[in-house]
């Protein structure tokens, strides 16, 4: 495994150009805009129960974090 530093100054256990190191390109879309309603979605949680985001958060504020993997 070759380690190289990218233009942000970050290292990773994969060479530059590796698809796993692909970042957000200039002007790439970042999903729902501020001021709009977050789309409806339902996904299974760690126990296999379906979570309906808007229904199950009740009237609470919430944060949704997209991350790449829990494995690596």
């Amino acid at each position, binding site marked *: 495994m070759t380690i190289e*530093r990218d233009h942000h100054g970050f*290292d*990773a256990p994969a060479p530059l150009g590796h698809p796993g190191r692909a970042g957000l390109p200039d002007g790439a879309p*970042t999903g*729902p805009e*501020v001021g709009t309603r977050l789309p409806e979605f339902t996904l299974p949680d*760690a126990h296999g129960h379906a979570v309906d985001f808007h229904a199950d958060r009740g009237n609470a504020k919430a*944060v949704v974090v997209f991350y*790449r993997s829990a*494995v690596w």
Partner: protein
Amino acid sequence: MLKTFAEKQEIPYPLLSDIDSEVIRQFGILNTGVSRDDAMLYGIPFPGSYVVDESGGVVAKFFHDTYKRRDSPELLIDAALGAVQLSDDAPRETRSDAGIRVTAAIHGGKASIRQGIRRHVVVRFEMDPGLHIYGEPVPEGMIPTTISVSGPPGLIVENPILPPTTPLRLESLGLELPVWSGRVDLQVPFYPNGELASETRPLDADEVTLDVTVRYQACDDEACLLPKTETFSFTVPMDVIDIPSLGMHKGHGQREGKFNATPHMLRLFARKLRQHPMGLPRFVMTNLRLNREAKKRAAAERHPSDR
């Protein structure tokens, strides 16, 4: 898999599984830098966060041009609540002057730093009624409020995050000046990159020193106090973090954690392989090619004359 992960990493909030990246696609944040041919990685999102209010509206979102830079959870909470929620145990120093208190604090995490995660220097001004300080721009000769943060090489300091100023009209001079009054929090985000805290080698130091310089001038409607420069110094510990224990993480500065990801990685590969039988050989070939190219680059750097 998420169940073991959540238990081992002691994650109290729900972890959802976006199998086959349906919601990622619905949101339009599928990582397009990963081609369909890279079947082992295809399907990952551009990582980012959305903060929604009671009615489900997006009030803030945080995306970065590299997946290695992320925001502290505290910043997401601040965005949800609409104000800096400085923890009582955040390291801080306060200087008081006539009618004005200036506090500098380290905000985010346990006030410790780790690669790519943004923490914030918060500079909180608390001014007596009638006093104000200046934002920018102000005419020549007046002192706008400035904060400079410096640390060792590899500590990246970003542009300040400033709340909106209010206009102060000085009829006699025909001027309108941007000011803050009462209590105001100015913030400067910072994070270490690979030069200071790399995931590919042990940490060089347990802590770093962060110097904060604040310059301002407080005035009321009639007169100004002398310009002030306050300096603060913080010793900030570097985090050692648990990462999934996995062959490829050997040599990381971070500590291999309690969570053994190898069986899950194999299952992930097996599932991807069923969907794209040619994916694995392609993945391996791409890796070999990229590693070859990287070695060539490294060799060229060692012997520049051979180029």
